[in-house]
Protein backbone atom coordinates (compact mmCIF):
# COMPACT_ATOMS: atom_id res chain seq x y z
CA UNK A 1 0.00 0.00 0.00
CA UNK A 2 3.07 2.26 -0.12
CA UNK A 3 2.12 4.07 -3.38
CA UNK A 4 -1.37 4.66 -2.01
CA UNK A 5 -0.06 6.10 1.26
CA UNK A 6 2.36 8.21 -0.74
CA UNK A 7 -0.31 9.55 -3.09
CA UNK A 8 -2.41 10.94 -0.25
CA UNK A 9 0.63 12.64 1.26
CA UNK A 10 1.38 10.41 4.26
CA UNK A 11 4.61 11.86 5.67
CA UNK A 12 6.02 8.75 7.38
CA UNK A 13 5.73 5.43 5.56
CA UNK A 14 7.41 2.18 6.57
CA UNK A 15 7.17 -0.30 3.67
CA UNK A 16 6.09 -3.90 4.35
CA UNK A 17 6.56 -7.14 2.46
CA UNK A 18 2.88 -7.78 1.85
CA UNK A 19 -0.58 -6.31 2.01
CA UNK A 20 -1.62 -9.52 3.74
CA UNK A 21 0.83 -9.20 6.67
CA UNK A 22 2.26 -5.70 7.22
CA UNK A 23 4.22 -6.89 10.29
CA UNK A 24 4.72 -10.52 9.27
CA UNK A 25 7.30 -12.79 7.69
CA UNK A 26 5.39 -16.08 7.41
CA UNK A 27 8.20 -17.86 5.59
CA UNK A 28 10.31 -17.77 8.80
CA UNK A 29 9.99 -20.07 11.82
CA UNK A 30 7.76 -18.52 14.54
CA UNK A 31 10.64 -17.34 16.79
CA UNK A 32 12.54 -15.73 13.96
CA UNK A 33 9.37 -14.15 12.62
CA UNK A 34 8.83 -12.46 15.97
CA UNK A 35 12.43 -11.18 15.99
CA UNK A 36 11.90 -9.84 12.48
CA UNK A 37 8.66 -8.17 13.61
CA UNK A 38 10.44 -6.48 16.53
CA UNK A 39 13.02 -5.14 14.07
CA UNK A 40 10.35 -3.91 11.64
CA UNK A 41 8.48 -2.18 14.45
CA UNK A 42 11.71 -0.64 15.76
CA UNK A 43 12.28 0.83 12.28
CA UNK A 44 8.72 2.13 12.07
CA UNK A 45 9.02 3.74 15.51
CA UNK A 46 12.29 5.27 14.34
CA UNK A 47 10.38 7.24 11.67
CA UNK A 48 8.40 8.89 14.44
CA UNK A 49 11.56 10.54 15.75
CA UNK A 50 12.46 12.05 12.35
Amino acid at each position, binding site marked *: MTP*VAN*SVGTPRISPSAS*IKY*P*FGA*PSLPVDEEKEERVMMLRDALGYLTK
Partner: protein
Amino acid sequence: MAKKIRIVHYINQFFGQYGGEDAASMGIVVKEEMVGPGKGLAAALGDRAEIVATVICGDNHIAERLEEVTKEVVDIIEKYKPDLVFAGPAYGAGRYGVACGSVCAAVQKRLGIPAVTAQNEENPGADIFKKELYIIKTGTNARTMADDTKRIVALGLKLLAGEFIGSPEDEGYITRGLARNVKSPKSSAERIVDMLLDKYHGRPFKTEVPIPSHEAVPATPAIKDLANATVVLVTDGGLYPAGNPDRMPSQNADTFRSYSIEGKDELKKGDYIVCHNGYDPSFVLADPNRLVPVDAMRELVKDKVVGKMHEYYLATTGLITTIANSKKTAQAMAEYIKDHNIDAAILTST
Protein backbone atom coordinates in the same frame (compact mmCIF):
# COMPACT_ATOMS: atom_id res chain seq x y z
CA MET B 1 -9.58 -4.69 -46.12
CA ALA B 2 -7.47 -2.50 -43.85
CA LYS B 3 -5.18 -4.14 -41.34
CA LYS B 4 -6.87 -4.72 -38.01
CA ILE B 5 -5.78 -2.68 -35.00
CA ARG B 6 -3.99 -4.96 -32.51
CA ILE B 7 -5.05 -4.59 -28.90
CA VAL B 8 -3.73 -6.07 -25.65
CA HIS B 9 -6.00 -5.90 -22.60
CA TYR B 10 -4.82 -6.03 -18.95
CA ILE B 11 -7.20 -7.30 -16.23
CA ASN B 12 -6.98 -8.72 -12.70
CA GLN B 13 -7.74 -12.19 -11.34
CA PHE B 14 -11.35 -11.30 -10.57
CA PHE B 15 -12.28 -10.10 -14.05
CA GLY B 16 -10.08 -12.87 -15.44
CA GLN B 17 -12.49 -15.27 -13.73
CA TYR B 18 -9.89 -16.88 -11.45
CA GLY B 19 -11.55 -15.75 -8.22
CA GLY B 20 -11.55 -12.90 -5.71
CA GLU B 21 -9.18 -12.34 -2.82
CA ASP B 22 -8.33 -16.05 -2.67
CA ALA B 23 -6.71 -15.73 -6.10
CA ALA B 24 -5.22 -12.23 -5.62
CA SER B 25 -1.67 -13.56 -5.29
CA MET B 26 -1.68 -15.37 -8.63
CA GLY B 27 1.08 -14.50 -11.06
CA ILE B 28 0.77 -13.42 -14.69
CA VAL B 29 -1.33 -15.50 -17.09
CA VAL B 30 -1.66 -14.67 -20.78
CA LYS B 31 -4.61 -15.71 -22.94
CA GLU B 32 -4.53 -15.08 -26.67
CA GLU B 33 -8.20 -14.16 -26.75
CA MET B 34 -10.63 -11.72 -25.16
CA VAL B 35 -11.64 -12.40 -21.55
CA GLY B 36 -14.35 -10.88 -19.30
CA PRO B 37 -14.64 -7.13 -19.93
CA GLY B 38 -12.66 -7.69 -23.16
CA LYS B 39 -15.89 -8.92 -24.70
CA GLY B 40 -17.47 -5.50 -24.20
CA LEU B 41 -14.39 -3.83 -25.64
CA ALA B 42 -14.46 -6.15 -28.65
CA ALA B 43 -18.15 -5.44 -29.23
CA ALA B 44 -17.48 -1.69 -29.18
CA LEU B 45 -14.47 -2.10 -31.46
CA GLY B 46 -16.31 -4.16 -34.06
CA ASP B 47 -14.35 -5.23 -37.13
CA ARG B 48 -11.74 -2.50 -36.84
CA ALA B 49 -9.69 -4.20 -34.19
CA GLU B 50 -8.81 -7.45 -32.52
CA ILE B 51 -7.86 -8.25 -28.92
CA VAL B 52 -4.75 -10.32 -29.62
CA ALA B 53 -3.99 -11.06 -25.96
CA THR B 54 -5.36 -10.59 -22.46
CA VAL B 55 -2.80 -10.32 -19.66
CA ILE B 56 -4.27 -11.39 -16.32
CA CYS B 57 -2.46 -10.77 -13.03
CA GLY B 58 -3.35 -11.09 -9.33
CA ASP B 59 -3.81 -7.72 -7.59
CA ASN B 60 -1.55 -8.59 -4.68
CA HIS B 61 1.12 -10.05 -6.95
CA ILE B 62 1.50 -6.76 -8.81
CA ALA B 63 0.76 -4.39 -5.91
CA GLU B 64 3.46 -5.91 -3.73
CA ARG B 65 6.21 -5.47 -6.35
CA LEU B 66 4.71 -2.81 -8.55
CA GLU B 67 7.72 -1.76 -10.62
CA GLU B 68 9.10 -5.23 -11.13
CA VAL B 69 5.80 -6.88 -12.12
CA THR B 70 4.77 -3.89 -14.26
CA LYS B 71 7.97 -4.40 -16.22
CA GLU B 72 7.21 -8.11 -16.67
CA VAL B 73 3.68 -7.28 -17.87
CA VAL B 74 4.95 -4.69 -20.36
CA ASP B 75 7.59 -7.16 -21.63
CA ILE B 76 4.76 -9.56 -22.43
CA ILE B 77 2.58 -6.86 -23.97
CA GLU B 78 5.48 -5.80 -26.22
CA LYS B 79 5.75 -9.30 -27.70
CA TYR B 80 2.24 -8.99 -29.12
CA LYS B 81 3.15 -5.80 -31.01
CA PRO B 82 -0.07 -3.99 -30.10
CA ASP B 83 -1.19 -0.65 -31.52
CA LEU B 84 -3.22 0.16 -28.43
CA VAL B 85 -3.48 -1.13 -24.84
CA PHE B 86 -6.51 -1.13 -22.55
CA ALA B 87 -6.54 -1.90 -18.79
CA GLY B 88 -9.51 -2.47 -16.51
CA PRO B 89 -11.97 -0.91 -15.83
CA ALA B 90 -10.87 -0.99 -12.19
CA TYR B 91 -13.81 0.97 -10.66
CA GLY B 92 -13.18 1.54 -6.93
CA ALA B 93 -10.66 -1.28 -6.45
CA GLY B 94 -7.46 0.32 -5.15
CA ARG B 95 -4.80 -2.27 -5.91
CA TYR B 96 -6.34 -3.01 -9.32
CA GLY B 97 -6.53 0.71 -10.08
CA VAL B 98 -2.88 1.24 -9.19
CA ALA B 99 -1.93 -1.80 -11.32
CA CYS B 100 -3.91 -0.56 -14.36
CA GLY B 101 -2.40 2.91 -14.04
CA SER B 102 1.12 1.57 -13.64
CA VAL B 103 0.82 -0.76 -16.65
CA CYS B 104 -0.70 1.95 -18.90
CA ALA B 105 1.89 4.55 -17.90
CA ALA B 106 4.74 2.08 -18.56
CA VAL B 107 3.25 1.06 -21.93
CA GLN B 108 3.08 4.68 -23.07
CA LYS B 109 6.58 5.41 -21.86
CA ARG B 110 8.33 2.28 -23.07
CA LEU B 111 6.36 1.25 -26.14
CA GLY B 112 5.28 4.70 -27.26
CA ILE B 113 1.70 3.63 -27.97
CA PRO B 114 -1.50 4.94 -26.39
CA ALA B 115 -2.97 3.16 -23.36
CA VAL B 116 -6.31 3.85 -21.70
CA THR B 117 -7.74 2.66 -18.40
CA ALA B 118 -10.94 3.46 -16.53
CA GLN B 119 -11.59 3.85 -12.82
CA ASN B 120 -13.38 5.83 -10.17
CA GLU B 121 -12.05 9.28 -9.42
CA GLU B 122 -11.31 8.38 -5.79
CA ASN B 123 -9.33 5.27 -6.74
CA PRO B 124 -5.71 5.81 -5.59
CA GLY B 125 -4.63 4.62 -9.04
CA ALA B 126 -6.43 7.57 -10.60
CA ASP B 127 -4.75 9.95 -8.24
CA ILE B 128 -1.27 8.62 -8.91
CA PHE B 129 -1.53 8.26 -12.70
CA LYS B 130 -4.06 10.84 -13.93
CA LYS B 131 -1.31 13.28 -14.87
CA GLU B 132 0.29 10.75 -17.20
CA LEU B 133 -2.79 9.04 -18.60
CA TYR B 134 -6.26 9.39 -19.94
CA ILE B 135 -8.38 7.57 -17.36
CA ILE B 136 -12.05 7.20 -18.20
CA LYS B 137 -14.17 8.20 -15.21
CA THR B 138 -16.40 5.41 -13.85
CA GLY B 139 -18.52 4.72 -10.79
CA THR B 140 -17.27 2.47 -7.99
CA ASN B 141 -18.68 -0.79 -9.33
CA ALA B 142 -19.14 -2.75 -12.53
CA ARG B 143 -22.83 -1.92 -13.06
CA THR B 144 -21.94 0.58 -15.78
CA MET B 145 -19.46 -1.72 -17.55
CA ALA B 146 -21.21 -1.67 -20.97
CA ASP B 147 -21.09 2.10 -21.21
CA ASP B 148 -17.60 2.35 -19.66
CA THR B 149 -16.06 -0.05 -22.18
CA LYS B 150 -17.62 1.95 -25.05
CA ARG B 151 -16.05 5.14 -23.72
CA ILE B 152 -12.64 3.48 -23.28
CA VAL B 153 -12.75 2.32 -26.89
CA ALA B 154 -13.88 5.71 -28.23
CA LEU B 155 -11.05 7.55 -26.47
CA GLY B 156 -8.47 4.89 -27.33
CA LEU B 157 -9.29 5.05 -31.05
CA LYS B 158 -9.09 8.84 -30.99
CA LEU B 159 -5.66 8.72 -29.35
CA LEU B 160 -4.48 6.14 -31.86
CA ALA B 161 -5.67 8.26 -34.77
CA GLY B 162 -4.00 11.32 -33.25
CA GLU B 163 -7.31 13.17 -33.16
CA PHE B 164 -7.99 16.19 -30.99
CA ILE B 165 -8.94 15.19 -27.43
CA GLY B 166 -11.60 17.46 -25.97
CA SER B 167 -12.11 18.55 -22.38
CA PRO B 168 -12.51 16.03 -19.53
CA GLU B 169 -16.26 16.76 -19.45
CA ASP B 170 -16.68 16.18 -23.19
CA GLU B 171 -14.64 12.97 -23.34
CA GLY B 172 -15.49 11.59 -19.91
CA TYR B 173 -11.96 11.21 -18.57
CA ILE B 174 -10.56 12.26 -15.19
CA THR B 175 -9.09 15.77 -15.22
CA ARG B 176 -5.36 15.49 -15.82
CA GLY B 177 -4.45 18.96 -14.65
CA LEU B 178 -3.16 19.92 -18.08
CA ALA B 179 -3.53 23.50 -19.22
CA ARG B 180 -4.40 24.20 -22.83
CA ASN B 181 -4.67 27.62 -24.43
CA VAL B 182 -8.15 28.37 -25.67
CA LYS B 183 -9.54 31.54 -27.16
CA SER B 184 -12.40 32.91 -25.12
CA PRO B 185 -14.85 35.40 -26.60
CA LYS B 186 -14.95 37.17 -23.21
CA SER B 187 -12.14 38.78 -21.25
CA SER B 188 -11.11 37.32 -17.90
CA ALA B 189 -12.68 40.31 -16.11
CA GLU B 190 -16.03 39.58 -17.74
CA ARG B 191 -15.76 35.89 -17.02
CA ILE B 192 -14.99 36.35 -13.34
CA VAL B 193 -17.89 38.78 -12.87
CA ASP B 194 -20.20 36.30 -14.64
CA MET B 195 -18.98 33.58 -12.31
CA LEU B 196 -19.48 35.73 -9.24
CA LEU B 197 -23.02 36.65 -10.32
CA ASP B 198 -23.80 32.97 -10.99
CA LYS B 199 -22.50 32.07 -7.54
CA TYR B 200 -24.47 34.93 -5.95
CA HIS B 201 -27.72 33.83 -7.61
CA GLY B 202 -27.11 30.16 -6.83
CA ARG B 203 -26.72 29.22 -10.51
CA PRO B 204 -24.25 26.52 -11.59
CA PHE B 205 -20.82 27.82 -12.54
CA LYS B 206 -17.48 26.29 -13.36
CA THR B 207 -14.15 27.38 -11.96
CA GLU B 208 -11.24 27.82 -14.35
CA VAL B 209 -8.74 26.93 -11.64
CA PRO B 210 -9.87 23.76 -9.90
CA ILE B 211 -8.33 23.01 -6.51
CA PRO B 212 -6.38 19.71 -6.38
CA SER B 213 -8.40 16.90 -4.83
CA HIS B 214 -6.10 16.05 -1.91
CA GLU B 215 -5.42 18.71 0.62
CA ALA B 216 -1.87 18.79 1.92
CA VAL B 217 -1.64 17.50 5.49
CA PRO B 218 1.41 18.80 7.34
CA ALA B 219 3.54 16.17 9.08
CA THR B 220 3.21 16.10 12.85
CA PRO B 221 6.39 17.12 14.70
CA ALA B 222 8.93 14.38 15.42
CA ILE B 223 8.85 12.61 18.79
CA LYS B 224 11.81 13.89 20.80
CA ASP B 225 11.92 11.23 23.46
CA LEU B 226 10.61 7.89 22.24
CA ALA B 227 11.70 6.14 25.44
CA ASN B 228 9.10 8.17 27.34
CA ALA B 229 6.40 8.27 24.68
CA THR B 230 3.05 6.44 24.66
CA VAL B 231 2.29 4.80 21.33
CA VAL B 232 -1.03 3.40 20.16
CA LEU B 233 -1.41 0.62 17.60
CA VAL B 234 -4.01 1.31 14.91
CA THR B 235 -5.10 -0.71 11.89
CA ASP B 236 -7.42 -0.27 8.93
CA GLY B 237 -7.20 -3.99 8.26
CA GLY B 238 -10.51 -4.81 9.97
CA LEU B 239 -9.17 -6.81 12.94
CA TYR B 240 -11.95 -7.17 15.48
CA PRO B 241 -12.51 -9.48 18.48
CA ALA B 242 -14.08 -12.81 17.50
CA GLY B 243 -17.77 -12.40 16.81
CA ASN B 244 -17.28 -8.75 15.74
CA PRO B 245 -19.21 -7.47 18.81
CA ASP B 246 -19.62 -3.95 17.40
CA ARG B 247 -20.78 -5.21 14.02
CA MET B 248 -18.13 -3.24 12.21
CA PRO B 249 -18.62 -3.23 8.42
CA SER B 250 -16.51 -5.17 5.92
CA GLN B 251 -16.01 -2.04 3.80
CA ASN B 252 -16.37 1.75 3.77
CA ALA B 253 -16.36 2.19 7.57
CA ASP B 254 -17.05 5.69 8.86
CA THR B 255 -15.94 5.01 12.42
CA PHE B 256 -13.48 2.97 14.51
CA ARG B 257 -13.50 0.98 17.76
CA SER B 258 -10.93 0.50 20.51
CA TYR B 259 -10.23 -2.94 22.01
CA SER B 260 -8.36 -3.68 25.22
CA ILE B 261 -5.02 -5.46 25.05
CA GLU B 262 -4.31 -5.02 28.75
CA GLY B 263 -2.43 -7.99 30.20
CA LYS B 264 -1.96 -9.54 26.74
CA ASP B 265 1.60 -10.40 25.72
CA GLU B 266 0.37 -11.03 22.20
CA LEU B 267 -2.83 -11.27 20.17
CA LYS B 268 -3.82 -14.93 20.19
CA LYS B 269 -4.98 -16.83 17.15
CA GLY B 270 -8.72 -17.52 17.36
CA ASP B 271 -9.48 -14.50 19.56
CA TYR B 272 -9.81 -12.21 16.53
CA ILE B 273 -11.52 -12.11 13.17
CA VAL B 274 -10.89 -10.06 10.07
CA CYS B 275 -13.91 -8.20 8.75
CA HIS B 276 -12.49 -6.71 5.55
CA ASN B 277 -13.30 -7.99 2.06
CA GLY B 278 -10.19 -6.53 0.46
CA TYR B 279 -7.39 -8.99 1.25
CA ASP B 280 -6.78 -12.65 1.98
CA PRO B 281 -6.93 -12.73 5.82
CA SER B 282 -5.42 -16.19 6.34
CA PHE B 283 -1.98 -14.91 7.43
CA VAL B 284 -3.48 -12.46 9.92
CA LEU B 285 -5.95 -15.03 11.28
CA ALA B 286 -3.03 -17.43 11.83
CA ASP B 287 -1.18 -14.72 13.80
CA PRO B 288 -2.99 -11.41 14.43
CA ASN B 289 0.32 -9.84 15.59
CA ARG B 290 1.23 -9.68 11.88
CA LEU B 291 -1.33 -6.87 11.60
CA VAL B 292 -1.38 -5.40 15.11
CA PRO B 293 2.11 -6.12 16.48
CA VAL B 294 1.28 -6.32 20.19
CA ASP B 295 3.96 -8.97 20.87
CA ALA B 296 6.72 -6.85 19.32
CA MET B 297 5.56 -3.70 21.13
CA ARG B 298 5.76 -5.52 24.47
CA GLU B 299 9.39 -6.41 23.68
CA LEU B 300 10.28 -2.85 22.73
CA VAL B 301 8.64 -1.48 25.89
CA LYS B 302 10.60 -4.03 27.92
CA ASP B 303 13.82 -2.94 26.17
CA LYS B 304 12.91 0.71 26.89
CA VAL B 305 13.00 1.63 23.20
CA VAL B 306 9.52 3.04 23.63
CA GLY B 307 7.87 4.27 26.83
CA LYS B 308 4.42 2.71 26.84
CA MET B 309 1.94 0.99 24.58
CA HIS B 310 -1.60 2.36 24.94
CA GLU B 311 -3.59 -0.54 26.38
CA TYR B 312 -6.18 -0.53 23.59
CA TYR B 313 -5.70 -0.91 19.86
CA LEU B 314 -7.86 1.02 17.41
CA ALA B 315 -9.48 -0.73 14.47
CA THR B 316 -11.43 0.26 11.39
CA THR B 317 -12.08 -1.21 7.95
CA GLY B 318 -10.31 0.64 5.17
CA LEU B 319 -11.73 -0.70 1.94
CA ILE B 320 -13.44 1.22 -0.88
CA THR B 321 -13.73 3.95 1.75
CA THR B 322 -14.73 7.37 0.50
CA ILE B 323 -12.47 10.27 1.38
CA ALA B 324 -15.35 11.74 3.40
CA ASN B 325 -15.63 8.59 5.54
CA SER B 326 -11.85 8.29 5.92
CA LYS B 327 -11.74 11.85 7.21
CA LYS B 328 -14.57 11.23 9.63
CA THR B 329 -12.83 8.15 11.05
CA ALA B 330 -9.45 9.91 11.20
CA GLN B 331 -10.88 12.92 13.02
CA ALA B 332 -12.54 10.65 15.58
CA MET B 333 -9.26 8.76 16.04
CA ALA B 334 -7.36 12.02 16.48
CA GLU B 335 -9.84 13.07 19.21
CA TYR B 336 -9.38 9.73 20.96
CA ILE B 337 -5.59 10.03 20.76
CA LYS B 338 -5.68 13.54 22.24
CA ASP B 339 -8.07 12.53 25.01
CA HIS B 340 -5.85 9.63 26.08
CA ASN B 341 -2.53 11.51 26.18
CA ILE B 342 -1.04 9.39 23.42
CA ASP B 343 2.06 10.75 21.71
CA ALA B 344 2.18 8.75 18.49
CA ALA B 345 0.47 6.03 16.47
CA ILE B 346 1.65 3.14 14.35
CA LEU B 347 -1.06 2.46 11.75
CA THR B 348 -0.96 -0.71 9.69
CA SER B 349 -2.73 -0.70 6.36
CA THR B 350 -3.89 -3.56 4.15
